């Protein structure tokens, strides 16, 4: 692909490509995405490039389609009867609608609004994904479980009680366990849909810190209603407005300091939403 671009002869495209490379290469490119629940259009003509690594925050008033957008990226919407997406979504250059959803979801993980550990042990929760993908060797599983729990900043708290039920953990610990479960299949992207909304401030800030650390090696897309959280945690921000229009997207600092869209200015000033 690289050589192809250069060999096409145009100096212009080569320079563009190099500039793109020094900037962050997009990992997810959305072009003209429309989303429907039955007849209702929930996302209107969304186009956005989500840069690789770092944290992209998705914001916007309630019901504007943030969760829907997230569920499009890993095709989780497909379990809902009547839900339909149109447009192009490329993940690492590949059309996600042509990928096997199983492969796609292994590479794009998801953490949900409410912690949803399985009624299994802590170990079995984290080992679930690898097992589903055929890993049987105990030593490999042990390694993945430890690695994932460390990355989710939960290891120190649970390393001596991996056999205990996941339900014995606190809400914040359960959410970090869910992060570890998602990380155990080594995804390149982690989608998080309001992961802190059911947690207290202390647990929330732990999740935020974890998210920041993860962003060094993978791409995090996080939906949040909390402006302060978005400002603290994200590198880029996208703001949806009602009707499922992506009204603003850019580096967090830029969007917060000088939003272009007047409604986004109002939203960020807390005047609605």
């Amino acid at each position: 692909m690289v050589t192809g671009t250069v060999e096409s002869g145009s100096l212009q495209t080569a320079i563009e490509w190099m500039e793109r490379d020094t900037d962050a290469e997009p990992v997810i490119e959305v072009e003209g995405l429309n989303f429907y629940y039955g007849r209702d259009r929930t996302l209107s003509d969304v186009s956005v490039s989500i840069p690789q690594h770092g944290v992209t925050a998705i914001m916007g008033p309630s019901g504007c389609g943030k969760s829907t957008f997230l569920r499009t990226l890993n095709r989780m919407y497909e379990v809902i009867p009547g839900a339909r997406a149109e447009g192009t979504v490329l993940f690492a250059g590949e059309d996600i609608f042509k990928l096997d959803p199983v492969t796609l979801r292994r590479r794009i993980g998801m953490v949900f609004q409410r912690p949803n550990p399985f009624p299994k042990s802590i170990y079995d929760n984290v080992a679930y994904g690898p097992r589903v993908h055929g890993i049987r060797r105990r030593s490999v599983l042990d390694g993945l479980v430890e690695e994932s729990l460390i990355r989710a900043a939960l290891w120190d708290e649970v390393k001596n009680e991996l056999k205990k039920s996941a339900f014995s953990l606190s809400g914040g610990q359960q959410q970090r366990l869910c992060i570890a479960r998602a990380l155990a299949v080594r995804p390149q992207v982690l989608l998080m849909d309001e992961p802190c909304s059911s947690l207290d401030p202390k647990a929330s800030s732990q999740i935020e810190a974890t998210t920041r650390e993860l962003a060094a090696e993978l791409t995090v897309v996080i939906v949040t209603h909390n402006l302060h959280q978005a400002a603290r945690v994200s590198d880029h921000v996208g703001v949806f407005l009602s009707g499922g229009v992506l009204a603003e997207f850019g580096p967090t600092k830029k969007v917060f300091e000088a939003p272009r869209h007047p409604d986004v200015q109002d939203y960020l000033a807390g005047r609605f939403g």
Partner: protein
Amino acid sequence: MTAQGLNGKGCSAGADDSPSLHGLPRSLFRKRLDVVILFILSSASLIALGLIFFFILREAFPFFRRVPLVELFSRTWLPTLEPPRFGALPMILGSATVTAGALIVSVPIGLAAAAFIAEVAPGITKDVFKSAIEILASIPSVVYGFFGLAVLAPFLQSTLSLPTGRTALTGAVILAVMALPTIASLAEDALTAVPASYREASLAVGATRWQTIWRVTVPAASSGLLGAVILGMGRAMGETMAVLMVTGNSPQLTASLLKPVRTLTAGIALEMAETPFGSLHYHALFSLGALLLLITLGMNWSAEWFRGRLVRRHRR
């Protein structure tokens, strides 16, 4: 009568109470009267259970006083001979064989049907399957018996070249169909009770739908599924008319599925009509009834316990 009693009480209390407080116990009681009526009506089932228990045990008691309990578990049932023999083992084994045979067929099919309805089937297919199962449950057992007698027994007799088509196997197949709705619909309830968030979490790490069903939904519903199986077993064990019509009713001790057997239920139903009231034989039949009652009650209670555990486990 009770209202008068209340008035009397209310007046005496009102002697030193303020008028505003005076009205209070009356309205409280009126509320409580509703509760009392509801309680009495709804405890009808409890009372019925108690009465059934009481009378069966009362009628069984004279038998246990005259015949040692171990006699029930011996091999020969000749209640009208002199001296009579009350070995119910053939019938106990008959019930066990037919029930076990029925479960071998109905558990896999019932659980598969439940999984299909709860997890896989799209809208209309789901409704069709659900109502088919409901209809299966509503067919009177004598119709099942008739079907077994007229269709299944001759079929089994000719295909397996048996001396008679009325065998434990015939009963097992008919009972399997009869227990199927119980197992399928209760198992479906159990699977549906598993929170959708578990499924989402499983799909989101890249599990397929089948992996999600087998590794997450079924284990999470396991106690409810077990409850469904136990209640299906109770259904098969307690069924009388259909088995009476198709199993041949021979009180011989056998563990073969291809021979005629008599179940506890069929034994009681067959002999009760021709037994002199108050005879030892009569009381013996009640002791069999008591045995059956204990078994089915035990099954029901354990099933409810398992099903309750499922709910307790996921209520968060």
